[in-house]
């Protein structure tokens, strides 16, 4: 994929979320801002046969996977026009027909599910690979270890992507997790583990591509740790715990600024081109909001539809 497209995708996530939280009706959101390169770099390595699962921090993954921003905004704002008919919200955003098997809001709750999807692919000889994004917060959970074990044992076509932003709500990973390098968690299972700079979309894409192709070739699962920074607090309902200096250091690693700078330096884009990209993205976000705002809320009777 053209690097300018990677930049655009990251910019879309950033602008989308900025517009979302500016609204009084934004609801309970976990933002991907700062971590765009993880989702975008990973999705650049996936094709239409693959499935992506995510944690509750789903906006970046959903948009990076190519879901229509209007539909995503509608889901976040509780409208029937969302892919989940407004019933899942951000924490359960899903569009399997578009390769986004879905978000699940239980920390680590999607890991064994992802392995099950991979098992189905393998059993039915489908060409797809399953990627599951989760945070460092899920790395202390038994589910991760159970998933690594069975994925290794059965050589499942599964890529585990740890979006390590160093914090689990307010708890720094050093206080929650014994291993310093989270990709080391895969080693006891014989699963390859790689750690990359999660703020460098090209590094994420390169690593993900290699591991996805390896899984697609039937050589089994892998663990990709992407060290990233989140630019907002854990959620819109959580206060920020980091001081100004820490935040400044985090923002200095902005993946959008970084790629923009690289493209400018390489002569691949100029200031006007960047401005055009931003305008394009802003227009898309504006369309998304207009679409979502015009969409109706579900009928209360839908509380009882699709239950069982």
């Amino acid at each position, binding site marked *: 994929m053209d690097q300018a497209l990677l930049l655009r995708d990251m910019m879309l996530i950033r602008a989308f979320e900025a517009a979302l939280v500016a609204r009084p009706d934004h609801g309970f959101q976990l933002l991907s801002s700062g971590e765009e390169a993880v989702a975008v770099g990973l999705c650049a390595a996936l094709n239409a046969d693959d*499935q992506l699962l995510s944690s509750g921090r789903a906006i970046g993954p959903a948009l990076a996977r190519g879901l229509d921003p209007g539909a995503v905004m509608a889901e976040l704002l509780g409208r029937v026009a*969302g*892919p*989940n*008919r*407004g*019933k*899942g919200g951000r924490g*359960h955003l*899903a*569009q*399997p*027909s578009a390769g986004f*098997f*879905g978000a*699940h809001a*239980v920390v680590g*709750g999607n*890991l*064994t*599910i*992802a*392995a*099950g*999807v*991979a*098992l*189905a*692919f393998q*059993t*039915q000889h489908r060409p797809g690979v399953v990627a599951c994004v989760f945070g460092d917060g899920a790395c202390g959970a*038994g*589910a991760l270890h*159970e*998933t690594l*074990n*069975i994925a290794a*044992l*059965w050589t499942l076509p599964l890529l585990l992507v740890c979006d390590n932003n160093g914090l689990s709500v307010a708890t720094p990973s050093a206080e929650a997790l014994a291993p310093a390098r989270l990709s080391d968690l895969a080693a006891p299972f014989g699963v390859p583990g790689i750690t990359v700079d999660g703020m460098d979309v090209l590094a994420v894409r390169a690593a993900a591509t290699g591991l996805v192709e390896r899984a697609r070739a039937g050589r089994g699962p892998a663990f990709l740790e992407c060290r990233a920074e989140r630019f907002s607090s854990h959620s819109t309902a959580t206060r920020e715990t980091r001081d100004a200096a820490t935040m400044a250091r985090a923002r200095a690693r902005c993946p959008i600024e970084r790629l923009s700078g690289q493209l400018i330096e390489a002569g691949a884009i100029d200031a006007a081109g960047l401005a055009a990209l931003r305008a394009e993205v802003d227009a898309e976000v504006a369309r998304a909001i207009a679409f979502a705002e015009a969409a109706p809320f579900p009928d209360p009777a839908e509380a009882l*539809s*699709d*239950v*069982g």
Partner: protein
Amino acid sequence: MSADAPAARVKLFFREAIARALREEMTRDERIILLGQDVGDFGGSYKEFVGLKAAFGRTRVRDMPVAEAAMVGLGVGAAAAGLRPLVSITYMDFLMLGLDPLVNYAAKARFKTGGQLTVPLVVKTTAGAKGQGVAHSQCVEAWLMSVPGLTVVAPSTAADAYGLLKSALRAPGPVLFVDHKRLFPTAGEVPADEVLVPFGQAAVRRAGEHVTIASHGYMVRVALEAADRLAGQGVSCEVIDLRSLAPLDLDTVAASAGRTGALLTLEEGQLTCGVGAEVAFRVRERYDTVKLARVGALPAPVSSNPVLEAACLPDAARVVAAVRRLLKS
């Protein structure tokens, strides 16, 4: 075939009824796979899966490590992605380790995705006390019957194990199939031809006039034993086997209780928030003059100690005494 011709039946051990249902359905639908501990060459802890690996191969019959969260989660994900897994959880006590994927994902997947995903998963588990101790004895199906989106069934006979399991393996959503340790030593007549037992349909096991006993699982046999003894004392019991806890066939129980005027619920699980609490209250909502009583385990863990286990669990004598108290009240 004439309506009068009796259907051909074959007598099978309880485990064989399960194996037969699985064999038929796995032959019919190649999407069905079996995941569990010791289900392959070992054939299952109760030999209920004997022959399946030989017949269907190691891709479709897979032994799993002792990791119930992963067992259920894998089953859930595979079901959502197009297979029809049956996950065998040997002890219902350990189903608790798999409740996150079962309750938080499987039971909610269709709703939370607005209908985009369905989870045609069967979790089969064995409940009940039989000398194995506090963490190998529990009957907690009452906990699960209130989960929206989850079907819960509990056979008491080989025929119903066969028929309900077949229905479960064709169901569009997640089904929890709860059998019982004490059912495996039993044998029963099973239809020779394919028969599916529908969900939400109770069975009247014994017709009677003076009292309705509603039960499920192994306790149905205890109810029938109690009914035999009570018949000798001039008390006629109607014994209803619920078979399906969610959806619950209230109509059959309520109609019976409406006729007899007295309802005793019987379960091996706890009375608090138990199956009986739900059944009795729903019947009371229909008929406010029906006399109600519930019998269940003592509010204590069930020890492996035979004296203590026997003290905890309902038996025919206790049911007889409870019926007599109910009818006098």
